[in-house]
């Protein structure tokens, strides 16, 4: 008797969000990425659709904090003070599918860079690379309102993602995205109900569900990864089981790895610090993908390389 393989028939479909607009579409990007679109769990395309190999973006800053870990800084030593060059290196040498810039320098608690300075940075970034862009504020609600409004205008027609919308601060960023038809990244902190609540708040405010990407927070390996892993799995399962409000793509970052000194500190007992940090970041990212993330934002080029290789093998090796 032939063995019947247990395929799940999911009723839900994750919406697909495309970022980046080509010249023919009124933008200047030279590539686009599509997030989501799945009707199956990750890499199980044999029982539905898993149409898009998860893209891996790289994350940069407008200014680099003094305490930014040496291991993450080193590959970019020559370009780290110039976001445009930094982004270019990510794309041309390390194959980043998209670039996310965090405008931390605009925070009044940091360098309090002016909106005009920030505008210069974003214009340079736009010129420097052709991949789709994500522009994140610094977490200061008042300043972000101005910086992201400016970013939305500078990037008009380019179809970016702006972030991060949070429960306590989502209105001005929503307005910024809607005015130029950008997408928005909705952040929630390790909580499926909050993730859902964010999508409800945004859609009630007028943002189209099809313009939302969720960031449910990927905790670093060893620092709550198990919570993230289960929250992401639960979000994706709920979406596939039919919860429409959760049927949006998820984008996760590995940034938290670079706050955990255990990952990159000098310590012979736990091996070479550079190799350890790279593997720490790669494992954190890959875990998010297996749980249900549709895209990643990462920092270290070698971690990107390893995750891309695994994704290629997982995606290409199976029936999708």
């Amino acid at each position: 008797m032939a063995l019947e393989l247990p395929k799940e028939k999911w009723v839900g479909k994750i919406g697909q969000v495309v970022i980046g607009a080509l010249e023919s579409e009124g933008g200047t990007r030279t590539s686009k990425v599509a997030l989501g679109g799945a009707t199956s769990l990750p890499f199980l395309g044999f029982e539905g659709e898993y149409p898009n190999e998860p893209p891996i973006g790289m994350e940069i800053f407008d200014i680099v904090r003094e305490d930014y870990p040496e291991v993450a800084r080193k590959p970019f030593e020559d370009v780290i003070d110039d976001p445009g060059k930094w982004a270019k290196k990510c794309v041309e040498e390390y194959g980043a599918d998209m670039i996310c810039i965090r405008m931390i320098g605009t925070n009044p608690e940091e360098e309090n860079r002016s909106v005009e300075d920030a505008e210069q940075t974003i214009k340079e970034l736009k010129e420097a690379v052709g991949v789709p862009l994500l522009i994140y504020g610094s977490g200061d609600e008042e300043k972000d309102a101005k910086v992201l409004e400016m970013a939305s205008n500078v990037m008009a027609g380019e179809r970016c993602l702006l972030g991060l919308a949070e429960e306590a601060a989502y209105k001005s960023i929503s307005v910024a995205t809607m005015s130029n038809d950008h997408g928005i990244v909705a952040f929630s902190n390790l909580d499926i109900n909050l993730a859902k609540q964010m999508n409800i708040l945004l859609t009630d405010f007028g943002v189209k569900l099809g313009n939302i990407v969720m960031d449910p927070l990927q905790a670093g390996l060893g620092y709550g990864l198990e919570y993230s892993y289960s929250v992401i799995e639960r979000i994706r399962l709920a979406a596939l089981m039919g919860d429409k409000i959760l049927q949006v793509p998820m984008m996760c970052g590995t940034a938290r790895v670079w706050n955990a000194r255990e990952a990159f500190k000098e310590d012979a007992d736990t091996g070479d610090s550079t190799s350890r940090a790279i593997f720490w970041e790669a494992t954190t990212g890959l875990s998010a993908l297996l749980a249900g993330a549709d895209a990643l934002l990462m920092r270290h080029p070698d971690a990107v390389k390893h995750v891309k290789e695994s994704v290629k093998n997982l995606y290409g090796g199976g029936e999708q």
Partner: protein
Amino acid sequence: MALTALDIYKKLPQTNCGKCGFPTCLAFAMQLANKKASIDACPDVSDEAKELLESSAAPPIKLVKVGSGDREIEMGDEVVMHRHEKTFYHPVAYALMVDDDSPDIESKVQAAGEMKFERVGQEMQLDMIAIRSKSDDPAKFSSAVSAVKGKTSVPLALVSQNPAVIEEGLKVCGSDRPLIHAATKDNFEKMAELAKANNCPLAVLEDSGLEELAELSKKVKEAGVEDIVLDLGKKPLGKLFQELTLIRRLAIKKLFRPLGYPIIMFAEGEGASEGLEAAIGTLKYASIVVMKEADRAIMYPLFTLRQNIYTDPQKPIQVKPGIYELNGPAEDSPVMITTNFSLTYFTVAGDIETSKVPSYLLVADSEGLSVMTAFAADKFTADTATELIESCGIADKVNHKKIIIPGQVARMSGKLNENSGWEVVVGPRDSSGLPKYLREYTSA
């Protein structure tokens, strides 16, 4: 999926005779479904029904043990697809593979044995050594097994498809219950005999498909081997990933016995690539992952991943309550307090480390709850904080009596001050505010 009360009821005599001690057959069936009663209580049940009920009571994935003594490994007996549904019970075992023709086999095993980590109160070290016969020479294999056995007490896997080779290996270590790897469709009769004679678990290897693998495991079981481990063989990673998921589903959701066994996987690639394959096996359904290298920089994060994924979602990981010294504190360093939920501790400790300010961190026993939850549940109060301050000996380490508490529990400051006599300073509400806070605090 286990049988429901209704499934069971259909197989009972439905006479409502009451001899089982329950008023009706349906009531009895409900007790059976909840495993609160035994089918033996029914004197009239058919043999067929009895067998069905007994077999459905067996776990969907058989518990298989390898090795003996302190380092014995238990695997299988998992009941869910996703850890949030209940928990994953038996952590994946990491095995290092050594070849019988390798000249440095002993030093490799020795080094592997010396690799020990401690993280959040758990000890982590390699779980198994797999000895592969590349030579295909029984004598050579036997001496390699002897050499390895002299250097380690962890369970072994004997890797060869040549029964003559395995037989020699078993003469050295058969009583230690090594895993025999592997029975194939060509050699399974002989391998099953060896496994039976030595009471060892046996891996079955078949790479052509799940149906063929199930056929082979059935044959091995019919030959009298109970402790079986599945190997899907070498195939593209994406295919392997899908089959790992399918086997788990067949076992758990369909109670498909021929594939209801733990799985062994050999990670491909080198360095981080091999490590990431091991990570995939850890996340999705392998019970043993065999690796060719055991670099500390890869193994430490991998053990950490296993620790995370195999944490019971109902029971948070806790750190030991007490004093933690960060950044090399001295007698004038600030003293802070938080709770012993591991995630809370790591976040706070990480932020203090980032600040580079030498500090003492007192960790209170909140039964693994975070600060806010513990405060709300009365597990982190002015009383418990006072008790910790008095019992941990911090007063002997510093020349001041000032303690910084989390901003979220500012409300306990008055009482804490009254109880303990320490001056209470309210710190930032969120741990991420600590680096800035501490720098300002110490420069003030």
